[in-house]
């Protein structure tokens, strides 16, 4: 069943996943590993910022990301009439 609406739905899904995965990559691999030394010059309380992203911040962002994704997908399902 390859109706145009299904193709639209799938590409909208892929765009959303791509956006989420960019954020996922930036907060963990980006802020937590690659840019950690540079970020460590800033601080939140006693935390160096890069260290904070690696041990705290990235995890909070992951949680938020999944709920954001679930919420947006729920809307997409309805828009394209593919929900259960």
């Amino acid at each position, binding site marked *: *069943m*390859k109706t145009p609406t*299904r193709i639209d*739905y*799938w590409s909208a*899904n892929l765009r959303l*996943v791509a956006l*989420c*995965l960019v954020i*996922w990559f930036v907060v*963990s*691999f980006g802020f*937590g*590993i*690659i840019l*950690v*030394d540079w970020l*460590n010059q800033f601080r*939140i*309380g*006693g*935390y*160096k910022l890069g*260290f*904070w992203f*690696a*041990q*705290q911040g*990235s*995890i*909070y962002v*992951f*949680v938020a*990301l*999944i*709920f954001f*994704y*679930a919420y947006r*997908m*729920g809307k997409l*399902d309805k828009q394209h*009439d*593919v*929900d*259960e």
Partner: protein
Amino acid sequence: MTLTSLTYLVVGATFALYIGIAIWARAGSTKEFYIAGGGIHPIANGMATAADWMSAASFISMAGLIAFMGYGGSVFLMGWTGGYVLLAMLLAPYLRKFGKFTVPEFIGDRYYSKAARIVAVICLIIASVTYVIGQMKGIGVAFSRFLEVDYDLGLTIGMAIVFFYAVMGGMKGITYTQIAQYCVLIFAFTIPAVFISLNLTGNPVPQLGLGSTMLGSDVYLLDKLDAVVKDLGFAEYTTSARISQTNMFFYTMSLMIGTAGLPHVIIRFFTVPKVKDARSSAGWALVFIAILYTTAPSVAAMARLNLMNTIEPSDGEYMVYEARPQWIRNWEQTGLLEFTDKNGDGRIQYSSDEATNELTKVDNDIMVLANPEIAGLPNWVIALVAAGGLAAALSTAAGLLLAISSAISHDLLKGVLKPNITEREELFASRVAMAGAIAVAGYLGFNPPDFAAGTVALAFGLAASSIFPALMMGIFSKRVNKQGAIAGMLAGLGVTLLYVFQHKGIMFVQSTAFLGDLPPNWFFGIEPNAFGAVGALLNFAVAIAISRATPAPPTEVQDLVDSIRVPKGSEAASTSH
């Protein structure tokens, strides 16, 4: 009451609770729990998934490893949480729509091949058995301490209990038991953390305490820790990447992909009521996991600081060995903590210098269990931590053993070798498989390849390199065919196993390693625990290349892919073929 009898009491009470819930729940409605869906809310399912997922590696081992690795230990924190993002977006909703019970079943259908299904079973068994070795290490440490015996005897007793627990079996599938296990383990993990954070910083929230100043001073806790460890010649706590940042990158990636490729986690999402719920369930699971994972860095840093203060109470004044605290005497009995008074002054010097360091062995896996004792917390807290550690280890070990035995009895025997096997024979085969897996994992657990969390990391690497790419390509590509998928899985698993075995020994028997496990022997400086990410890349590359050179999958398989991409028309999971 002595600590030992209190520990028996608390551990016994929690076990009675799990069994009680199992019996009560079974009496309610059997079907509801075995189909594990019906009325179970995504929040409840998330909590149960969290209990299933967090094992001895998360509970007993991880914070101890971070305590000694500092910033470098972040790989576990990011890796074991970030994988849920991949799971929620790339796998869970689609596998839920597919609507079968096991991972090899999906691979067999999507790649229209029994051979692919068998390869998936092999990958699953290798990864899961390695995972169980890690659990055995954690269980061995916990039992040796609380029964006051050495590690090997503790492990043997642990094996017997795991066997009993897993064969009772049914308990594993019951969501409410797992919710109880989650409550016990999270309570046991956070209570000591709150007390210790209060003692050190005056802030009861460990996540905030770690970023606060020391009580009665304006020095930040992390700055103080950095200064103390640097003083003794160790690398700075908050910045040391251990091996290298490249290695951290691959290590984190390997754990993330592995999380999304481990069968016992994926299975949980097969059985939620709707595709929509698969997405939010992953989010709730991560919320409950994050409570432990954001507390762990505080536990790690504070335990390290308390340990340093015990050994060097004031500047240059080291602990007098004869006056050592009780917790040190207790752990010395297990053989996991050792001192050698090299200069014979009756005091214990601790430094990064091999020649003068007198804390000659401190198994990182003891830190979380010893932590409340080091901080001088009351006995009931210490007993609670023991119960929590066992809940974590046993629930995960049982889940993995179930995944192993169902792969053998359901996928291999019933699915491929002996389709008309009776239910009794299937059940018998699954018991034998379970016993076999415990024996192998337990035996290898006497000389584990690494600390519990490190061993588990190896398992994740194996899952990452074999299962995850096949699942993801099966959903996101219609072009990848059976030849590509099989070659990809074999290449990914093969290269990762070879790399791990050449450094860690064949089947982890250390004497058979043909290349020492040392940085100069590592490919691009990537340690074996982190190699799964490279294996996964190779898996993707091989699968895509070979699929291009061979015919596209048949139309009905392409239609299957189209249908799993949309939630509409999903049915409850079934085992029918």
